[in-house]
């Protein structure tokens, strides 16, 4: 019964989306306030309808209603409650429902908080949002109905992939979707602006917080997902340049570029058409990612070709959305002439460089991700190549180097026209830090990969440069502490957020370098009581015990770790067997210190009689790996801090209309006579 309610409200949401797509747009074209206002109500109603549908599906999972097909396929009565709930989005149908729910929630947020948007702009934004929503709700209803029933209802479910039974996988999807789908706001604002034919600083002011929010969520989601991979997959890898990872990374790269270029629109009224294009591209990447992940094309081009229903549907949405948006852009963009002139050496110039490099990086990842698919499709399966991590490392890495070098410099530049000499003077500490880092690293690990010291230097450059810029803003050490403190509290939060996010990347580079350059590992077979030495440690398999979890049985190994004869820790690692799914998973034992992770995993028991009491034991020392997620955390915190800036606050647009001229105020007072 409840599932049928879900079905009905889902159809109602489709109808509401149709109304919302057409009426406000028509109203905006005719200038009729009554028609435009319809969008607000439908947006809220649509969000409510989808919330009910989502709640109905959640009810099905929580009560283990196996007459629902996807509950039967993806859940089991023995599953812990947390994973019954996360099972709602742990499948194709449910995750698409979450997708449209997030989209509708963003639309409703515009309807509720956007009271001070120009009414035509708001009507058009809501209309574009509804068009996307309509397409995807239709996709759900016609190809992926989450409320399909089974008759007779099976007695129990077939379970969920056991690897999903992990908190690290329960929470990233909603976060990722908030990011991924959140970029639809930038897209809708861009299309609405193209229809209006007007992009101004107020527009930039509106787009920025939405982009920032989406970016923050996406950063958190990607980081959590990679953390999950790290501790769950059992060998300490955390990024694989996998097409599915790339699907979330490409919107991140474009979104990061968009975040920076929208600052230029807001502050300087320049780069308008480029920012519009970026907004379109960013959301296009979200759509492309949805296509790649949801169509099954990654599993096999062949499988996609034989059962193309879902894939073709999303591909059609993709083609219409991207094609339509780019056509509109081609028609309208030439009419939007940029405002402020700026020198190549300036804050704007640095942001343009940022955009060029990020776009290049994103395009490279896109190429590497799609190339094998396109080649296979074009050649009819004759010609197949693999594009793996070596390709991405060889192309992506070199693009990041100039980007990071510039990151320290950019914030030191003045708007309009920067002074390279003053900026580089302020970067002297960063240069010293970089040289020190290179030297220290080289001395500490002389036999590591030759590029590693330079990567550490790069991180030190960015970290020290960012701190120096921040210190300069609050006059740290150049003025009395009270002055610094006062200036600190007077800092706009968005500026501090920027510093934090940049610092986070510096921290992350340290982690990436450490884990990829100096990882050591020990693979061996041990019986309980046996000790092996290697990787600088002595590892003893103390015992292996067996037991039962809620829906699995396990073997738990206790690994005693000693360093130079001194006890370090005893870590527990499990090998879990899930009978329902007939699958095995591993839980790594991890001991984290700030400098490194000790990572131990127990593997299979020996199969021959003489090895029957011995287990494969893997022990890794992953230096600096925690810095990767520490860095991501700092980036997310920077994003949140910046979001909390009242000038950005989503709900405080009231000031926006007045604030526009003042932020753009050029220094009209004559410059003081130069000191020299």
């Amino acid at each position, binding site marked *: 019964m409840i599932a049928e309610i879900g079905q009905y409200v889902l159809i109602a949401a489709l109808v509401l989306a149709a109304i919302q797509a057409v009426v406000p747009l028509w109203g905006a074209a005719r200038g009729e306030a009554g028609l435009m206002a319809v969008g607000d109500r439908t947006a809220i109603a649509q969000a409510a309808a989808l919330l009910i549908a989502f709640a109905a599906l959640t009810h099905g999972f929580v009560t283990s209603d196996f007459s629902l097909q996807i509950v039967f396929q993806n859940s089991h009565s023995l599953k812990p409650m947390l994973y019954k709930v996360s099972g709602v989005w742990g499948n*194709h149908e449910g*995750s698409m429902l979450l997708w449209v729910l997030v989209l509708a929630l963003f639309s409703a947020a515009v309807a509720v908080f956007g009271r001070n948007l120009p009414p035509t702009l708001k009507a058009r934004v809501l209309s574009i949002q509804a068009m996307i929503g309509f397409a995807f709700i239709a996709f759900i209803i016609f190809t992926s109905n989450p409320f399909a029933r089974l008759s007779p209802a099976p007695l129990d479910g077939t379970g969920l*992939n056991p*690897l*999903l039974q992990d908190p690290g*996988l329960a929470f*990233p999807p909603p976060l*990722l979707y908030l990011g991924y789908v959140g970029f639809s706001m930038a897209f809708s604002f861009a299309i609405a602006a193209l229809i209006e034919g007007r992009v*101004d600083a107020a527009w930039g002011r509106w787009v920025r917080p939405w982009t920032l929010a989406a970016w923050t969520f996406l950063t958190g989601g990607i980081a959590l*997902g990679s953390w*999950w*991979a790290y501790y769950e997959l*059992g*060998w300490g890898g955390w990024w*694989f*340049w*996998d*097409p*599915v*990872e790339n*699907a*979330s990374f490409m919107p991140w790269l474009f979104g990061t570029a968009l975040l920076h270029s929208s600052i230029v629109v807001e502050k300087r009224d320049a780069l308008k058409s480029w920012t519009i294009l970026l907004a379109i591209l960013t959301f296009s990447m979200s759509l492309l990612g949805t296509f790649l*992940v*949801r169509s*099954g094309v*990654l599993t096999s081009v062949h499988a996609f070709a034989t059962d193309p229903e879902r894939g073709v549907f999303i591909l059609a949405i993709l083609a219409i959305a991207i094609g339509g948006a780019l056509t509109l852009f081609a028609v309208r963009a030439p009419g939007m002439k940029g405002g402020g*002139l*700026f020198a*190549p050496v300036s804050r704007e110039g640095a942001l343009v*460089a940022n955009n*060029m490099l990020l776009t*290049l990086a994103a*395009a490279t990842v896109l*190429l*590497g991700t799609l*190339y094998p698919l396109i080649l296979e499709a074009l*050649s009819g399966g004759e*010609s*197949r*190549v*693999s*594009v*793996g*991590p*070596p*390709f991405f490392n060889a192309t992506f890495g070199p*693009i990041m180097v100039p980007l990071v070098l510039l990151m320290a410099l950019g914030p030191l530049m003045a708007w*309009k026209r920067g002074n390279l000499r003053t900026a580089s003077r302020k970067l002297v500490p960063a240069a010293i830090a970089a040289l020190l880092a290179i030297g220290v690293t080289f001395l500490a690990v002389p036999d590591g990969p030759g590029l590693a010291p330079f990567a550490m230097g790069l991180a030190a450059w960015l970290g020290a440069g960012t701190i120096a810029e921040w210190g300069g803003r609050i006059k740290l050490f150049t003025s009395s502490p009270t002055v610094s403190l006062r200036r600190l509290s007077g800092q706009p939060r968005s500026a501090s957020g920027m510093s934090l996010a940049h610092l986070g990347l510096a921290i992350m580079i340290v982690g990436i370098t450490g884990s990829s350059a100096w990882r050591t590992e020990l693979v061996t077979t041990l019986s309980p009581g046996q000790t092996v030495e290697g990787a600088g440690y002595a590892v003893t398999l103390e015992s292996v015990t067996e037991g039962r979890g809620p829906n699995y049985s396990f073997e738990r190994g206790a690994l005693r770790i000693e360093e130079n004869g001194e006890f370090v820790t005893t870590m527990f690692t499990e090998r879990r067997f899930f009978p329902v799914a007939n*699958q*095995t998973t591993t839980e790594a034992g991890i001991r984290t210190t700030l400098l490194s992770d000790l990572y131990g995993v127990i*593997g299979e028991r020996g199969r021959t009689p003489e090895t029957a009491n011995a287990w494969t034991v893997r022990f890794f020392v992953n230096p600096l790996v925690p810095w990767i997620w520490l860095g991501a955390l700092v980036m997310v915190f920077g994003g949140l801090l910046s979001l909390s800036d009242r000038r950005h606050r989503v709900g405080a647009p009231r000031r926006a209309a007045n604030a526009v*001229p003042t932020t*753009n105020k*050029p220094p*009209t*007072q*004559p*410059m003081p*006579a*130069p000191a020299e």
Partner: protein
Amino acid sequence: MKQISAFLAIMMLVLLAGGTPSLAVEPDEVLADPILESRAREISTELRCVVCQNQSIDDSDADIARDMRLLVRERLVAGDDDEEVVNYLVARYGDFVLLRPPFQQNTLALWLAPPIMAVVIATLAVLFYQNYQQRRLAGTGPDPLSPSDRAELDALVDRIGSTSPPNPSNRQRSRFRSEIEEGMKPLPEGDDGASQSDNANTDSSGNQRQS
């Protein structure tokens, strides 16, 4: 194989296609000679497990990955150099095993596109710079000074010139001038900036009289 259409698809579908986490190299595969073994590991990270999605044989616990790893070690022990080992596996399994695609006809676009894009972007940057120089030299920026601004500027240059150290050089003068010009550009929207420069105008006209 049932397609895993769960969320994990978003992050990790490919890794999980085998259904089990990756626990690759088994102790019994490891070669006694540490140098050979580290070469074997190097090579393994560049070779794809042919039944897996995007996993190297170093990461995959599929049976075929194990066979391929053993093959790599067999060839190394037989005295092949790294390239010969890779060629041997390519001969057996095709280009598909190479995670770093070879530079050849069907990968031309893949390898050439990034550098070409980089060149295009660099060219755009140079064009932008030239355009900027032209606009600056021609004085046809988007915000040309109005006659009243121009008069104000002249007055200011004179004034600063007279309060600065005696006999400011021409170079210094032109620098003041360009700095002031930069600062006086009205806003694109016009409103705010215009009204402020109007105020400034009355001030500077007073100054003009003094000088």
